[in-house]
C-alpha cells in the first residue's frame, strides 16, 4: 500500500487515521516538541505528558512518528529525503517547505493540502451548522468531542484515497486542495435546501429533532431513549402496542402523521411520562421487536463495553503498555477490513528506524538528536 506522510494539524488527523485503517503506511511528521494533537484534552495521567492526550491515543493509532524540526535546514533536507520515498503527503497549510521543492523531490507525489480555516467553533458558526445544534430556547452549541474536525478528516481521507487510487492507475500524482470550512458547509446542505425552497431558515430542535413527526429523546428511569415513530399507519399501530396510552389508542385521528406533527410536543410529553419509570435498554428492545426505530441515548462511557462494538471487532480487548487492560477502538474501517492497528506512537518512536532506512548513519542520527533537530 502507499506510504503517506502526515503533516496535518488536529483538524485533519482523523483523516490520516482512516488512511492507516485502509492499510496505508502513515508516517506522522511532527516537531520535536510534539504536535497539537498531543495537547488536546482530556489528558490521561497514566502516560507521560506528551503521550497522555486521549485524542492523540485515538487519532494517531496505526501511524508511525518521526520527530523533526522543519525550521532547521537539515530537518527540511530530511523531509525532502522522506518525500522521495513517499507516495503521498497530506498536510495542513502552510506547507513547511515550498511546494515546488516538494514536487521537485518527487514529481509523482500525491499532495493533499488542507486549509484548516478558522477555529472549530468559528468554522461551524459561519457554515450554518451551529444554528441547527442546541436547544431551541438555549444557546447554539458546538458538536462535542471535536466531531466537526473529524468530519473534515473523513473528507480529507476520501480526497487522499481517491488521488492515490488515481495514481495507481496512471502513475502520476496530483495536487488536491481541501477546505475545512467547505467540508462543513456541505454538511449543512439541508439548511441551504430549505432556504432555497422556502426562503426559511432551519432552526435548532435540541433533543426533539428528526424527520418523522414524532421523534425525540425522552426520559426514562436510567437516562433517555430516542424514538422515531415511522410515518406510515402500521408504524403507528406498532407504536400504540409499545405505548398503550388511552389517549393514543382511543383517538383514531392520531394515526395521521400530519395530525401528530401538529401535536408533537404534547404527544412526546405523554410518551415521556410512560417511559420515565422504565429502563432504556428494555424499552428499546421492545420497540425494535415492533420494528420501531429506537435506541438508548448513550454517553461514551456506556460504549466502552458495548456488545455490538465488541462483537464486530470495533473494540478489541488489549493490554495497553500505558493503560493496562482496556477495549481498544480500532475504528470504523479497521473493524470491517480486520486491519491490525498499532497503538499511537511515542513522540519520535520511529525516527531512528526511518532515518536509517534513508541512509543516515548511527553517527548522523546521534548528532541530529544531540542538536535537537530530530527527536
Amino acid at each position, binding site marked *: 500500500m502507499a506510504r503517506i506522510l502526515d503533516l496535518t494539524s488536529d483538524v485533519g488527523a482523523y483523516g490520516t487515521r482512516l488512511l492507516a485503517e*485502509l*492499510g496505508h503506511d502513515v508516517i506522522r511528521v511532527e516537531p520535536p516538541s510534539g504536535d497539537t494533537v498531543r495537547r488536546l*484534552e482530556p489528558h490521561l495521567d497514566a502516560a507521560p505528558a506528551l503521550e497522555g492526550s*486521549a*485524542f492523540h491515543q485515538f*487519532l494517531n493509532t496505526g501511524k508511525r512518528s518521526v520527530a523533526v524540526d522543519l525550521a532547521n535546514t537539515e530537518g527540511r533536507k530530511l523531509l525532502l529525503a522522506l518525500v522521495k520515498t513517499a507516495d503521498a503527503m497530506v498536510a495542513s497549510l502552510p506547507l513547511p517547505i515550498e511546494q515546488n521543492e516538494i514536487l521537485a523531490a518527487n514529481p509523482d507525489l500525491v499532495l493533499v493540502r488542507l486549509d484548516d480555516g*478558522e*477555529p472549530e467553533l*468559528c468554522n461551524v*458558526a*459561519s*457554515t*450554518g451548522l451551529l444554528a441547527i*445544534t442546541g436547544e431551541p430556547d438555549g444557546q447554539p*452549541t*458546538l458538536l*462535542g*468531542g471535536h466531531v466537526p474536525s473529524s*468530519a473534515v478528516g473523513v473528507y480529507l481521507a476520501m*480526497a487522499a484515497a481517491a*488521488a*492515490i487510487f488515481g495514481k*495507481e492507475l496512471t502513475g502520476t500524482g*496530483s*495536487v*488536491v486542495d*481541501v477546505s475545512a470550512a*467547505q467540508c462543513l*458547509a*456541505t*454538511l449543512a446542505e439541508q*439548511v441551504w435546501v*430549505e432556504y432555497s425552497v422556502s426562503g426559511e431558515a*432551519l*432552526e435548532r430542535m435540541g*433533543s426533539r429533532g*428528526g*424527520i418523522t413527526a414524532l*421523534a425525540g*429523546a425522552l426520559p426514562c428511569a436510567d437516562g433517555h431513549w*430516542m424514538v422515531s415513530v415511522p*410515518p406510515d399507519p402500521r408504524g403507528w399501530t406498532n407504536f400504540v402496542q409499545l405505548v398503550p396510552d388511552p389517549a393514543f389508542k382511543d383517538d383514531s385521528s392520531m394515526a395521521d402523521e400530519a395530525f401528530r406533527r401538529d401535536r408533537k410536543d404534547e404527544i412526546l410529553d405523554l410518551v415521556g411520562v410512560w417511559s420515565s419509570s422504565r429502563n432504556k435498554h428494555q424499552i428499546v428492545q421492545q420497540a425494535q421487536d415492533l420494528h420501531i426505530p*429506537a*435506541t*438508548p*441515548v*448513550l*454517553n*461514551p*462511557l456506556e*460504549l*466502552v463495553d458495548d*456488545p455490538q462494538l465488541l*462483537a464486530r471487532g470495533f473494540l478489541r480487548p488489549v493490554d495497553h503498555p500505558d493503560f493496562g487492560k*482496556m*477495549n481498544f*477502538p480500532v475504528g470504523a*474501517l479497521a*473493524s*470491517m477490513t480486520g486491519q491490525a492497528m498499532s497503538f499511537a506512537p511515542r513522540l519520535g518512536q520511529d525516527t531512528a528506524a526511518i532515518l536509517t532506512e534513508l541512509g543516515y548513519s548511527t553517527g548522523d542520527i546521534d548528532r541530529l538528536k544531540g542538536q535537537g533537530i530530530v527527536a
Partner: protein
Amino acid sequence: MAAPRQLPLSGIRIIDFGHIVAGPFCVRLLADLGADVIKVETNTRLGRTGARRGPPKRSGSSGRTPHLSQINRNRRSIDLNLKTERGARIARQLADAADVVVENFSNGVMDRLGLGYADLVKTNPRIVYASMASFGHTGPRAGWIGMNVNLQAASGLMLATGEEGDPPIGISNSWNDYIGGLHAAVAIVGALSKRNKSGVGTYLDVSQFEGSVAMLGGLLFASGVTGKPPARTGNRSGLAAPQGTYRCAGNDQWCAISVQTDAQWQALVALLGERAAHLRGAACATVAGRHAQHDAIDEVIEAWTGALTPVEVEQSLKSVGVPAAAMRRGHDLAEVDTWQQVLKPIAGDSGIKVLGLPFDFQGVAPVAVTDAPRVGANGREVLRDWLNLDDATIEDLMHEEPA
C-alpha cells in the same frame, strides 16, 4: 502532451440500490469523483420518499423532494422492481457489469432478492460491495433499524454535546446519514485500491453506528481508561479561552468567539475598553487564568456584544486579529465566501445551485452537476451502455411483462 487529466474514479461503474439519504449520499460523493452511477429503483419504493420536513414546497423536475433531489443528483435511473423475476434478473446483469454496488437495506433484504454479495461475487469476483446498515449486518444488533436521530443518540454524540445538566442535544439535520455515507465512500475507494493489486473485490459491511462512534474516538478512549463519562464542556475549549457563543442584538442572534493566544486576549481586552479594566491584570494573562475567570469574562463580552449585530462583532474582532464568526442561518449563508465556493449550478437548469465536493483536484475539471433523474428516466440508455444490448433486445426487455 499528456492526455487530459481525469477525475480519479472516471470509468468506475457504480450501482446505487440505496434509499433515503445515507446510501445515495455515499454514491453522490463517488459520482463527484468521476464515477458513472446508475440508480436502480422503482416508483413503489422508498427511494422517492422520506427525509423531508413537512410537505414539500416544491418537488422539482425529478419528482423527488428537494432534499432527495440534491442527494440523488449526478446519476441515471432505471426502473426495476426487484421483487419481480424480470427486475432481479436485469439488476443481476447490471451488477455483473459494475465495479461497485452500494445498498442500505435492512438485514437480509438483498440476500432474499438474490442480489447479496454471495450471489454477485460468483459471476463478478471484482465487485466491491458495500452494505450500509445502521448497525452492520453482524452482531447482536444486526437486525435493528435506526434513523439518523437514533444514531446520534446511540453513538454518544448527544451526551458529548452541550453542558453538564443539559438534556441530550442533537443536530437538526441528517448528520449521521452524511457521516455514514462519507465513511462508506472512503472504504469503497480503499477497496478499489486493494483491487488494483489483488484483482478481486471485497464485501464491506459498513456500520453507520461505528462511523458515528469513531467520530468521538478520543472521548471513547478516555472513558475506556478512566471509567468516567467525559465532561460536557459545551462551547468551551481546553486550549482556547475565552471561547463561546455570545448573544448579540436582535432575536436569537449570536457570534462565536475563540481566543487562541495570549496576544489575542490582549487585543480583545483593548477592544472592550473600560468595561474590561478589571480583566487586564496578570490573573487573565494565561489560558489557565482565563479558564478560572471564564464566567466573569463571558459576562463582560456579552455586555458588549448585546448591543451589536453578529456581523458587527465579527468584523470588530477580526480587525484586531481575534477569531470570531457570526452564526449564519438561511439567507446570510450566501454572503459567506465558503458557500460561494462550494455552490455549483445545475447544468441546464434555471440557476438553481447545489453543494458540490469541498475539494479540488488541481488541473482537473469537476464533474458538471446534473439534476436528479425522474424514476426510470434512463432505462434504455443504461441497458445500451452497460450491457451493450441492441435496440431490439432493449425494446423486448422494456416491454417484458413482470413475472
